[in-house]
């Protein structure tokens, strides 16, 4: 199949590659750019393990062709921490509040949480639950993910963070 050149910005750096028109964005990210943080968990856009941030919105990268992302600005979980390696407040929150277990959904949850807090810096618990309803987790029961996002919201607002997970 004839290949197409795509160029985009990924985690602040330029990225390019030759893809088939049918190549899914998740496969371009994982297999050509070696950004294996985002995962494939289903075939139907339900699980959100593949979530990345694209031009200021959360997208499921398994439901988008790489060619559709040509020219886009993408943030994946690998780009969340500061260049010096300091963890983002969300990454810190997920660890502090035990918001992950097997880690498979975590990159998608983190990038989704990132966009959620960009749009709504002080979300209520219900808003967080609704905001991550496109991301499935089989391990945690979500309760500590909600706490992790609340932790990050407080930290980003400079407010004191709650006690760590029980």
């Amino acid at each position, binding site marked *: 199949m004839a290949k197409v050149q795509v160029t985009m910005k990924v985690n602040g750096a330029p990225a390019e590659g030759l893809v088939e028109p049918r*190549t899914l964005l998740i*496969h371009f990210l*994982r297999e050509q750019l070696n950004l294996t*943080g985002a995962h494939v968990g289903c075939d139907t856009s339900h699980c959100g*393990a593949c979530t990345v941030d694209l031009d200021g919105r959360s997208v499921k990268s398994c439901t988008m062709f790489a060619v559709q992302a040509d020219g886009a600005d993408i943030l994946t979980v690998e780009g969340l*921490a500061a260049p010096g390696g300091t963890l983002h407040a969300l990454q810190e929150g997920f*660890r502090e509040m*035990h918001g992950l*277990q097997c880690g498979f959904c975590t990159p998608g949850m983190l990038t989704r949480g990132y966009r959620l807090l960009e749009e709504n810096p002080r979300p209520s618990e219900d808003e967080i639950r609704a905001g991550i309803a496109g991301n499935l987790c089989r391990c945690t029961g979500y309760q500590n993910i909600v706490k992790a996002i609340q932790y990050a919201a407080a930290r980003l607002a400079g407010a004191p963070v709650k006690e760590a*997970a029980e």
Partner: protein
Amino acid sequence: MNDVTPSSAERAEKLQGMGCKRKRVEDIRFVQGKGSYVDDLKLPGMLHGDLVRSPYGHARVRKIDAAKAKALPGVVAVLTAADLKPLNLHYMPTLAGDVQAVLAEEKVLYQNQEVAFVIATDRYVAADAAELVEVEYEELPALVDPFKAMAPGAPVLREDIKDKTDGAHGKRKHYNHIFAWQIGEKEATDQAFRKAEVTVKELISYQRVHPCPLETCQCVASFDKIKGELTVWGTFQAPHVIRTVASLISKIPEHKIHVIAPDIGGGFGNKVGAYPGYICAVVASIVTGRPVKWVEDRIENLSATSFARDYHMTTEIAATKDGRVTGLRVHVLADHGAFDACADPSKWPAGFFNIVTGSYDFPVAHVAVDGVYTNKAPGGVAYRCSFRVTEAAYCIERAMDILAQKLGLDPAELRLRNLIRREQFPYQSALGWEYDSGDYHAALKKAMDAVDYRALRAEQKARQEAFKRGETRELMGIGVSFFTEIVGAGPSRNCDILGIAMFDSAEIRIHPTGAVTARMGTKSQGQGHETTYAQIIASELGLPADDITVEEGNTDTAPYGLGTYGSRSTPTAGAATAMAARKIKAKAQMIAADLLEVSEYDLEWDVDRFRVKGNPERFKTMKELAWAAYNRVPKGLEPGLEAVNYYDPPNMTYPFGAYICVLDVDVDTGVCKVRRFYALDDCGTRINPMIIEGQIHGGLTEAFAIAMGQEIRYDEIGNCTNPSFMDYFLPTAVETPKWETDWTTTPSPHHPIGAKGVGESPNVGGVPCFANAVNDAFKFLGSTHIAMPHNHWRTWTVADKLGLHG
């Protein structure tokens, strides 16, 4: 100096040992997207495999034509049963003593059964080529109802064994019969029923479900022709068992097989077994001489790679009028699908279903189980539970509620009258188990107090009156469950997998600087072993948990173990870890005695050091002793400081708990809204309360999913009708209730640190608790048993049948 020496308590806190809420070491890589899962692996020259699967539930395979597929650029090979047969690999042995087709030879027996394996240079080409393989089928009548499996004239499913009268577990009654298994005293039980003042009987079915971890099953196989060595990276909950099975099947010597389970994206029982895709990838790598990756998609996972439950339990309890149970009789019809690939210890075809007497003091009981073949996917894995334990807990907990209803007793009160009493432990159950420890009454009373149970019942009564007066359309249900698990398989006298005793292991190496590398025979899939095993070592040896690296999953380096499932890691490998640490400590004590020039008996242990009794100023820390072990050991002692322990537990452990659920049912929509869920767990000694709570949250959420919506459904011709996330229920953060957790602590008397295991308790206790709550809402209207799953439609239908819609 003394005023700045940290106290014992301060030093203990710094170790981050047992009992503290240590943050997980795994998280550092996971939150940065740096986990290393199977599909992340990329090897030079790696090929991709994809499976051609049957569209039919039951059909004869007339012809397979792979010419068009092979002609597609990028396709390297197409494997069928004809290619595997000369290698004797077209069938593989199952854990249950049956065989399972790797690629279908003459017949397909379930929809999406594996028929051909396409190998190509990239995953897209492999998928294209799978579409181009032309298979000619002749459809046969499908058998999907297990109750019709042994009817005269039922379709013959397994032609390969139709004339075999002996199965792996005794005589077969019918060509679709797999095994009959029974336990308990039949005559004494029948007599208890003949004499009973009150009896109840109900068919309690536990629907077919799927564990559905977020990462599907997958592997990369790489055969090195020069060395004759095979390396397989895979989603394996039991990597050593996979290595042994791979060696037995392939005849490659076991020392030339390297099995590596990297990070695993959830297992829940799904990743215990060996599946056709693994075998195909291995053969493909041998044939092509290149690494081959196989990654199943979600539809394949849900429809073909195992299942759980599908247990149909006809349950009877005999009791006195005042609510003392006098006998339990259960017959189970077990639907095992097309091949018996049930993942149980080899001598236990119905798992540990004989824990079905639950937490109650039944004087007699009898259980009989018949397993049958149907045109459904093979499997029978323990989805977040020990073997068939959630089936047993659901069975007894529903039946106790039905008995309470018949007696006009409160369900909690009936339980209090029958719970095994604290002084009865160790308790011999009527079906052969020795429960190790418990204080059941204290746990249930604590739970009832925590939710103000009496007030809830009063509120429910008022609601029922209001409902009758037409003032509300909502019913209130209160679910109570009290469960006893049986985990940590197992004593080798009882439990083996294909003849390998079910022990587990730990190897601890203390390096000269006092840093530690420890390896276990288990394999975490999210449970946090790297964090918690280090806590055990930290407490045992007085070395900081942060200086301890825990490794699992590489069969080249880890000692042999049976893997992680059935909540066995803490009871077995956790015990092995403590025992190996104690061997090291004993040697360290000898070194300390030599250095301090006293007798070993004059030393006492203090958190992180041996000190001279009565002279605490004279001591040697474990860190100093580690150095000395490599620098200056006493005469007659080997240098070095390491130990390995293979732990064969003397008994299983019996975690227990009391759960209470409060929900409101809208009779016009069928929506059940969980208002409150309180879970009290007793898992013995608690290693990391944060991780325990996380395990309980997760297990309760899976229990909620099973009770309220999950079901793998088949139509009458064997089509699996819901094998995707479009319609297989996985709750999101919106539907998932909030969980309240609590605990009591009754250590296991036989476990070195008193721990019992916890990962699966919430599923075992949670499912009946939700089901009892829904049933409880309707029972004042005369309903006795509503089958799971309690989805909106089914609940609405129940309301409709009860005439609640006018």
